């Protein structure tokens, strides 16, 4: 039983860390520019496709992933400078509409380039099997995801918490005007943040691609999760995004694993089997509603 | 003096570590113009917020007409007879001046459902329109009925704001710097209006223009750093050394 819980906790951690890669960029974009970017998930999709293409072309997983991250970051910067920048001063509804339009365009563009069928992206052969972890075996690639996610999360934490750029980002999130009045080119800072966010999306796409599927529309469902994460964490807060991600990852995984089992102990099998997955799927939304009910601005409100 | 209309007992309010109000006790009696003065950031507006219901105090009690209103919502306090104006003009910029006041009139008809009417067009409700026009005339905005509130001059907007508060027919009017940003003539008109009103409603007045304050107020309370330093009639306030040092002159600092 402890092994099971340990394994599930690792699963939750792995899922949560990947969510964090997506949520980090989203929450900063949202926090600094007060911009709802529905197309964030499209960057994740494009990043995964680029990774699939680059891994296939280069024959190396690492090189492919790095190329995809760089390519998506450049793409993100271009997108920010051409379209998104013009939306910052607009109301939320316009942003929703415009970035929704971007989703449609991105999906079709990917379809035109790579076709309707899912793209093939496999983990490196060395990591395709399990490794022994004191008594049970765990997929090596998932361990790699945890490692990469942890390193990136720590790196990001270091950048945001300890570097001057990180201070500017935090300052920009809480008071853009004052940040500018102190000499920071927030516009350029933001392009940088956006590009970094896009790069993180691509990293998440490249790491999750072999596990899930690289296909058109993969960005939308995970986008909703990323929004849930940043709303729980408090918009604009990196720390909030990390806590929110891990919370959602663990709650979702443990919910899926334990709820059916819990329900079965006091409900008839058929009902439990029906209700279990449903409740597990609802669980994170319940979590979000509960958090917002008691903390209407999330756990770590950035504005203050 | 008669029984106080408004009774504030030991009200405190803090934001994070900042104590905006500490143990403030103050009353306003019926028919009185009670001025509240003090430097910026002393907590005057915060106190107005506590009384109007925009914020709830952390500690203390607020009574109005003998009833405890400390935890009532803002709209319930309006219904009880407390109206306010804002330091920064707070009107409906995209509605006509008349529509602005008509809303206040309509809101006063408090029998449940008065504004939950879904069919009859409001534009046909002559009594509301007539009364709204009368209020506009009262504050000196006759002839400006159909102008969009947002395009009124600054002083006119302040007058409209007063009309909005008055049209709720309050017993107590909370005026937060009604003359802010007004020219001398406009200020004079507002002072006259308040003098005129002072007979009908009680007023708690926050104002920086000391001439107006000393002319209008029956009593003056001085707030410094969230604490009530002194309450008294104008002459006492003028003579009070601590008040002079804390607020009026800063001369011997």
């Amino acid at each position, binding site marked *: 039983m402890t092994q099971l819980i340990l394994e599930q906790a690792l699963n939750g951690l792995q*899922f949560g860390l990947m969510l964090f890669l997506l949520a980090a960029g989203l929450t900063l974009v949202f926090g600094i520019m007060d911009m709802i970017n529905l197309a964030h998930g499209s960057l994740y999709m494009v990043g995964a496709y680029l990774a699939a293409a680059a891994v296939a072309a280069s024959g190396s997983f690492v090189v492919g992933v790095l190329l995809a991250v760089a390519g998506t970051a450049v793409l993100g910067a271009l997108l920010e400078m051409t379209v998104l920048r013009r939306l910052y001063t607009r109301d939320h509804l316009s942003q929703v509409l415009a970035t929704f339009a971007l989703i449609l365009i991105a999906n079709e563009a990917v379809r035109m380039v790579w076709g*309707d*069928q*899912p793209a093939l992206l496999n983990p490196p052969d060395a990591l395709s099997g399990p490794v022994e972890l004191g008594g049970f075996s765990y997929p090596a690639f998932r361990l790699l995801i945890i490692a990469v996610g942890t390193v990136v999360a720590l790196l990001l934490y270091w950048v945001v918490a300890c570097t001057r750029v990180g201070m500017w980002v935090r300052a920009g999130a809480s008071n853009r005007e004052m940040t500018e009045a102190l000499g920071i080119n927030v516009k350029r800072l933001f392009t940088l943040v956006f590009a970094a966010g896009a790069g993180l999306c691509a990293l998440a796409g490249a790491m999750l691609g072999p596990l899930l599927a690289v296909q058109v529309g993969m960005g939308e469902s995970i986008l909703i999760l990323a929004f849930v994460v940043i709303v729980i964490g408090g918009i604009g807060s990196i720390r909030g995004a990390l806590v929110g991600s891990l919370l959602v990852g663990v709650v979702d995984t443990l919910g899926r694993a334990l709820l059916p089992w819990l329900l079965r102990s006091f409900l008839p099998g058929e009902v439990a*089997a029906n209700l*279990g997955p449903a409740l597990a799927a609802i669980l994170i939304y319940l979590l979000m509603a509960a958090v917002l009910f008691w903390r209407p601005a999330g756990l770590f409100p950035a504005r203050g | 003096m008669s029984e106080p209309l408004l009774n504030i007992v030991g009200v405190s309010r803090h934001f994070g570590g900042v104590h905006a109000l500490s143990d403030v006790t103050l009353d306003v009696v019926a028919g009185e113009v009670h001025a509240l003065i003090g430097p910026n950031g002393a907590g005057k507006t915060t106190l107005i917020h506590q009384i109007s219901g925009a914020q709830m105090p952390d500690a203390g009690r607020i009574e109005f007409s003998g009833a405890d209103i400390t935890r009532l919502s803002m709209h319930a306090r309006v219904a009880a007879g407390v109206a306010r104006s804002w330091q920064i003009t707070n009107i409906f910029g995209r509605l006509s001046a008349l529509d602005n006041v008509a809303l206040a009139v309509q809101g006063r008809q408090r029998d449940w459902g008065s504004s939950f009417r879904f069919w009859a067009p409001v534009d046909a409700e002559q009594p509301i329109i007539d009364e709204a026009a009368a209020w506009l005339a009262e504050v000196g905005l006759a002839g400006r009925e159909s102008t969009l509130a947002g395009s009124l001059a600054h002083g006119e907007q302040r007058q409209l704001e007063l009309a909005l508060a008055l049209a709720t027919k309050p017993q107590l009017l909370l005026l937060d710097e009604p003359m802010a940003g007004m020219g001398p003539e406009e200020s004079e008109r507002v002072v006259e209006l308040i003098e005129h009103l002072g007979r009908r409603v009680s007023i708690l007045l926050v104002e920086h223009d000391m001439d107006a304050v000393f002319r209008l107020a029956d009593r003056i309370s001085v707030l410094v750093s969230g604490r009530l330093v002194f309450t008294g009639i104008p002459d006492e306030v003028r003579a009070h050394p601590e008040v002079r040092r804390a607020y009026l002159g800063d001369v011997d600092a």
Partner: protein
Amino acid sequence: MRLAAVVSAVAATLAVSLPLGTSAHAADKVKVGFLSTLSGPGAGLGVDIRDGFQLGVKHLNGKLGNLPAEVLVADDQQKPDVAKQEAEKLLKREKVDFMTGIVFSNLMLAVGPQAFDAKTYYISANAGPSQYAGEQCNPFFFNVAWQNDNLHEAMGKYVQDKGFRNVVIVTPNYPGGKDAVSGFKRFYQGKSEEVYTKLGQLDYAAELAQIRATKPDALFFFLPGGMGINFVKQFVAAGLSRDIQLFAPGFSADEDVIKAVGAPMLGMFNSSHWAHDFNNPENKRFVADFEKEYGRLPSLYASQGYDAAMLIDAAVRDVKGKLDDKEVLRKALEAKRFKSVRGDFKFNNNHYPVQNYVLRVISKDVQGRVTNKTMSTTFSNHADAYANQCKMK
């Protein structure tokens, strides 16, 4: 003012779109509405059915029953409401003579009534819901594949025969999944634990951990399309394949899945009514030409699409192109005057096939490719369990 503008806009747009719908129904050709899942995670299956169907039409020189064939392809995006809209277009605007192509049972159940109302024959090349096999059987519905339960039943029988007694069953939480469980358990008598996932789920970490904790000796899973691909990959990556024998119905272990997963699938058993190594002339031609045309081995979906084209061809030929007499057409369809690539089969009273089911194992063929190899016959002339509830007149 703006209303007038809106009117003119609506009128203008309608004017643009109306002529596009103009295509009078001609008796000199056969129109087939091919509605299938062509995008999204389940797209691989729809694409295979489509390619199989079109290969069939190509083998028939672009004709069905000696009439020029017009195949109108539409994508249901695996969404019931999209499927209904597209079906409505095909039925009402295009007035097709036959419908085919749907992969998933839930879409079939959504679209079926529309086709039946329009008195249009639906030739299912995959979806075989129990409803249409039993009480709701319909003269306008024919299935050239199987009833949902059949492959699961075949696998259940084999697992039972081989003496496994502690099995975990993994299926999505939707009616097709429930059918799979009941089908499997109709012939498997041992202990079983069922794990239900979300339909469309792609990450099975939580479920795999549960399975590891349960320590079964065998695992039977039915996860259509991309779900199965991910499951097998993650199952192997988690190291579970060393202790647990995998079983699946043929559609979770066919070429589409093998192509995506590869070597880890070696040694996996599955059930099917067709395999590309079936030794009959029709099948040899089909498999060879399919490989030549599309550069990959056909899956059982492709074989079903091919058979659907052959069934329509035979029936239209039978009635000599007189498609308006629905009764005669139905008799012709029921007669099934063509040779199937799976060998012989016949229609039951509920228009579902009575046929053989075989056991396949995934292994390397002579060219070193990982693919299915037929082992033995599990069921002969097997019908479905619902046929006796069907009171088709």
